[in-house]
């Protein structure tokens, strides 16, 4: 059975596109410092989760439990990334608290509030907001940097992260609403939302790849 065009885009092209930053990161890994290494692990996690989600979907198994676990792992990796790049002591302290509080919140959420077979529409937007905060904190920190903005790989990666999480905030929040409605129109809205999400994800991957391409020998 032929796949519809949008499913090819969201289900194949974009998940596979994670290989672009992975390939770029692999070629520059010898220059990578700790923060870039965390991004490398994040990309690998994305890759594994994408494969897992596609395999489960192909076997007609609900893959949303993967999303619940992925949200926690993604948050942990992103937090470690910002812990390694943010120099402000207060920011570091806040992130360390959140590293404990947020996973607890996620677990409480899927145990008592939202089924693991649904989208975690409380946890993921909260995660996006926290990461947006971290990203903006990094922007504030790099304001008085001594080098040109474009030469620092972290700047590109941080921009990608900010774009993805802020753009997808609405999508994370309303994903259950559109999926639960079975009418054709809501189905179309659902497809549009996930197409936008896939595009944002693709942009983030490309910016991360571009960031890695800026890696030079120190």
């Amino acid at each position, binding site marked *: 059975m032929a796949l519809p065009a949008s499913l090819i885009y969201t289900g194949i092209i974009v998940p596979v596109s994670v290989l672009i930053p992975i390939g770029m990161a692999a070629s520059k890994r010898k220059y990578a410092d700790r923060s870039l290494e965390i991004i490398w692990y994040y990309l690998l996690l994305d890759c594994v989760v994408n494969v897992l989600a596609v395999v489960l979907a192909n076997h007609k198994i609900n893959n949303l439990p993967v999303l619940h676990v992925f949200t926690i792992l993604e948050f942990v990796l992103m937090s470690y990334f910002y812990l390694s790049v943010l120099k402000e002591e207060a920011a570091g302290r806040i992130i360390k608290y959140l590293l404990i509080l947020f996973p607890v919140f996620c677990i409480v959420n899927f145990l008592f509030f939202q089924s693991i077979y649904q989208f975690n529409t409380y946890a993921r937007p909260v995660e996006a907001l926290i990461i947006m905060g971290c990203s903006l904190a990094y922007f504030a920190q790099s304001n008085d940097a001594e080098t040109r*903005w474009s030469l620092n790989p972290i700047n590109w990666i941080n*921009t990608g992260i900010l*774009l993805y999480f802020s753009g997808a905030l609405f999508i994370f929040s309303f994903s259950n609403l559109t999926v639960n409605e079975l009418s054709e129109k809501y189905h179309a809205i659902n497809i*549009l939302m996930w197409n936008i999400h896939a595009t*944002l994800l693709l942009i983030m991957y490309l910016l991360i790849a571009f960031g890695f391409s800026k890696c030079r020998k120190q």
Partner: protein
Amino acid sequence: MQETVGDNIFLLIILCTGGIFLLVISFVILFINNQKKLLRNRQQIHEAEMSYQKELMRVVLQSQEEERKRIGQDLHDDVGGSLSNLRMLINRDELPEEQENKAVIANHKLLIDKIIQDVRNISHNLSPPALALFGFTVALEELIDSINDEDNSLITLINDAEAITDQLPYDMALALIRVLQELISNTIKHGDAKRIEVSIFMENGLLVIQYRDEGVGYDPGNQKNRKGMGMQNIESRLNMINATYTMKTAPGSGFSMFIVLNSSLV
């Protein structure tokens, strides 16, 4: 009703996500532009500092050369001249009929005294000994005495802050003496002044040195007059001791300079 709302939802989703996307993109672009501007400013300041340092270095080297030239000239003209004079006289004195002539000996003594005086003047100029021995006030008085004509009418010194000036650290005192020396020599060379007034006093806890001459003055806006060697020398010495200064001059109305030192540094 629900149908019309539903029709717009596609557009709303695109507007919302697109709007946030645009917001983030414009934020990033503004941020990059701002950072570029900051970097450029910082670079400009750095370059200005570098060129100022270079200029300062050039002035220091040039004034060193000037000083050497002057010492060489003084040695050659005064000491050298007097010595060859003496040598010639001694040659002539070897004639037997003049051996007993006391006038000649007196003449020799006079010449030797002159040489001693010349050497003293040169070495005093190099490093005023009074400064280390007796402090700023005496050194300044000595400097003024050495320049003043017989009736002491050229330079008038009023020092109302002797207690403070005599406690100035050596480097600071030397710099001030040099600056005043340079100002006086500028006035004598270019100012054609009949009177110079130096007043030193305390005001609001600040040590103020006021230098004023009644010479011809000059147009400070004229490129030709701007920052000759002497003036740069004065500036760099004052900068070195963290003194602030203002100058006032105009053609026909003399020259004056106020030097202000924070006395807590003293």
